[in-house]
């Protein structure tokens, strides 16, 4: 098989799997249908790993750039499968595979869910390797459409509303993307990144204001998908109300792939570095602001959703440096975040289902509820502990390596301290979330829980099945493995992205860094006690009660777009 055909395999194998899942829907008899669906899932989520394994040497050696079906580059679709595409694909298939495994146990189930899930995975792979502006538009729309359906697939009415808001704001943003695309086509008559770049370079002023405004439209539209400040408002509802498995993919994979795809485009544009710088600064602010909101939440999954925004802030901050080392740090944190946040969504979701509530101020004794639900070895609790310690960036977990790496890029800048403060708040908010695992104290107050109190008297609300456990064990194992081999993974990503193996894996464990982590942890514990005190709770209520509306979301997008446009036009 040629390299070109292989490079398309990560896109087409999940599509083939989706087709098989749809065929399964037409089969009579549950046996053959289930077998067909499982085969489709295997084709879509497992086979691509074989293709990735074969492609590894080629991707490390510079990658393959080609036009699909060998059309003339002026009208064909340009793709580029390089080290970055390989890494983003690996991230996507790892996150999606583990989440799908979980959904086999916890639902949603059925061939339709499988088909849409696989279409989304295929769009992820396509987004990662596209080098054509219009193809990027189509990939983002397919990615979006499948994710709206998946958010709504939990069947809760609130999830329909969240999916609608997500759909409305991101479709409106995609219209602006088209306007930006129009600007580039008019200026350059080309849609491939290379064509646009070459034609802009030939223009006397590099395209001037028109090119700057077009770049701003495209970058702002993609920023909505990445959920960086100020355009993050759709994310908490969508991620909190989606089924747990879908939340894990949305937060682990879906918000990062568009960022790396945007980075690939911005490399070719004259306005690229300035846009990345502004987005990166917004990312650092996001990291701190979102974690403060997270600290005030009472819904366990919503708290995790705000953490996704905060952690993507770290990723965007590193990515915004515009250097290869920055990209490497961004990818590393994106990968580790996909693993530990996926794990957190699955374990917290399982615990909340077992305990029958998601309010972190009320739910207690989740460990006991889980044991009643069939998780005798406390796998969920251990999985949660691994995920929480990783996201809190305590050594030697993987979050420590990636956050340390991101932080080391900003030594001596304001961003360094912003990210440090965000880290301390992360610890505080996870202490707060961990309260659901505290043993239930004195006699339960309200009558409903009083009935549930005698152990075994009430049938468990759900059961923790083998595939849910397998999925959590898989992700926890990956978290621990990436922590153990963090240095090797840094060297590997460095090679793939053309940085070379010069990552600061050794200096991460130097005494000052460890002291800083210890100081951050103490600060986090102190913050936790402030947050659960009376005034802290009152402040939290105020933060939760801040008005959030759809019009506000559109306004935020307009402000973001205007800021980016002004930055690019006035200070070229």
């Amino acid at each position, binding site marked *: 098989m040629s390299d070109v055909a292989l490079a398309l395999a990560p896109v087409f194998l999940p599509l083939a799997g989706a087709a098989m899942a749809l065929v399964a829907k037409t089969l009579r008899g549950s046996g053959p249908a289930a077998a067909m669906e499982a085969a489709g899932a295997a084709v879509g989520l497992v086979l691509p790993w074989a293709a990735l394994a074969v492609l590894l040497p080629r991707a490390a050696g510079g990658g393959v750039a080609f036009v699909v079906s060998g059309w003339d580059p002026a*009208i064909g679709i340009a793709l580029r499968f390089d080290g970055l595409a390989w890494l983003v694909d690996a991230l996507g298939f790892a996150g999606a595979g583990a989440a799908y495994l979980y959904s086999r146990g916890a639902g949603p189930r059925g061939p339709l869910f499988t088909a849409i899930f696989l279409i989304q995975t295929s769009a992820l792979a396509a987004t990662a390797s596209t080098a054509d502006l*219009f193809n990027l*538009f*189509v990939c983002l*729309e397919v990615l979006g*459409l499948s994710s*709206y*359906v998946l958010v*709504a697939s939990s069947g809760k*009415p*609130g999830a*329909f*509303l969240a*999916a*609608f808001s997500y*759909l*409305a704001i991101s*479709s*409106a943003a995609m*219209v602006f993307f*088209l*306007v930006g*695309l*129009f600007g580039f*086509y*008019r200026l350059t008559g080309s*849609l491939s990144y290379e064509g646009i770049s070459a034609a802009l370079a030939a223009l006397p002023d590099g395209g001037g204001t028109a090119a700057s405004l077009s770049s701003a439209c495209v970058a702002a539209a993609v920023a909505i998908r990445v959920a960086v400040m100020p355009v993050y408002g759709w994310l908490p*509802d969508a991620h909190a109300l989606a089924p747990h498995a879908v939340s894990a993919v949305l937060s682990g994979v879906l918000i990062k792939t568009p960022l790396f795809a945007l980075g690939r485009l911005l490399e070719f544009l004259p306005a690229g570095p300035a846009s990345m710088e502004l987005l990166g600064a917004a990312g650092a602010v996001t990291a701190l602001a979102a974690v403060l909101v997270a600290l005030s939440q009472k*819904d366990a999954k*919503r708290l995790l959703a705000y953490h996704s925004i905060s952690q993507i802030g770290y990723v965007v901050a590193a990515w915004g440096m515009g250097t290869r080392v920055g990209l490497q740090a961004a990818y590393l944190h994106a990968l580790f975040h996909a693993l530990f946040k996926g794990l957190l969504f699955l374990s917290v979701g399982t615990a909340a289902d077992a305990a029958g509530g998601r309010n972190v101020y009320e739910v207690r004794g989740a460990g006991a509820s889980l044991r009643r639900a069939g998780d005798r070895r406390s796998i969920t609790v251990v999985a949660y502990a691994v995920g929480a310690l990783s996201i809190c960036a305590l050594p030697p977990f993987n979050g420590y390596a990636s956050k340390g790496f991101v932080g080391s890029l900003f030594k001596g800048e304001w961003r360094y301290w912003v990210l440090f403060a965000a880290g301390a708040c992360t610890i505080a908010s996870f202490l707060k979330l961990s309260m659901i695992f505290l043993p239930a104290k004195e006699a339960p107050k309200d009558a409903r829980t009083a009935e549930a109190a005698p152990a075994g008297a009430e049938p468990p609300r759900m059961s923790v099945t083998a595939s849910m456990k397998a999925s959590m064990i898989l992700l926890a194992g990956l978290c621990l493995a990436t922590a153990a081999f963090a240095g090797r993974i840094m060297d590997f990503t460095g090679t793939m992205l053309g940085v070379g193996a010069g990552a600061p894996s050794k200096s991460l464990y130097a005494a000052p860094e460890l002291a800083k982590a210890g100081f951050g942890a103490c600060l986090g514990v102190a913050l936790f006690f402030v947050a659960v005190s009376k005034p802290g709770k009152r402040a939290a209520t105020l933060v*939760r*009660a801040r008005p*959030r*509306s*759809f*019009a506000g979301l*559109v*306004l935020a997008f307009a402000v973001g777009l205007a800021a980016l446009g002004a930055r690019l036009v006035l200070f070229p």
Partner: protein
Amino acid sequence: MIARALVLCMFLIGIAGLVAKRNLVKKTFALAIMNSAVVLLFVLEGSSIGDEAPLLGGPGASFVDPVPQALMLTAIVVGVCVSALALALAYRLYKAYGTLDVDELKRLSGHE
């Protein structure tokens, strides 16, 4: 120039509807209007170099630029998918709560 100004008006009407209307179906219409405005913009631009249909064996000299038309064919398909899904979601919300008003829905579904 007038054509462009009209397209801009259409685009602004779309945005205004998306922000100001509280009915989910009207929001969906507003999205479709915004999308159509951009489609018209592309087609208008493509026709600035000629307005004959770009067919093999045609009169030759003044073809429209076929690339924007091909792009917009795809964009229209995407737009239809978005509208269909938005209407499906609105229908499910109406079945669950008996209203299409977004503020009312927010209150009923207990959004914080």
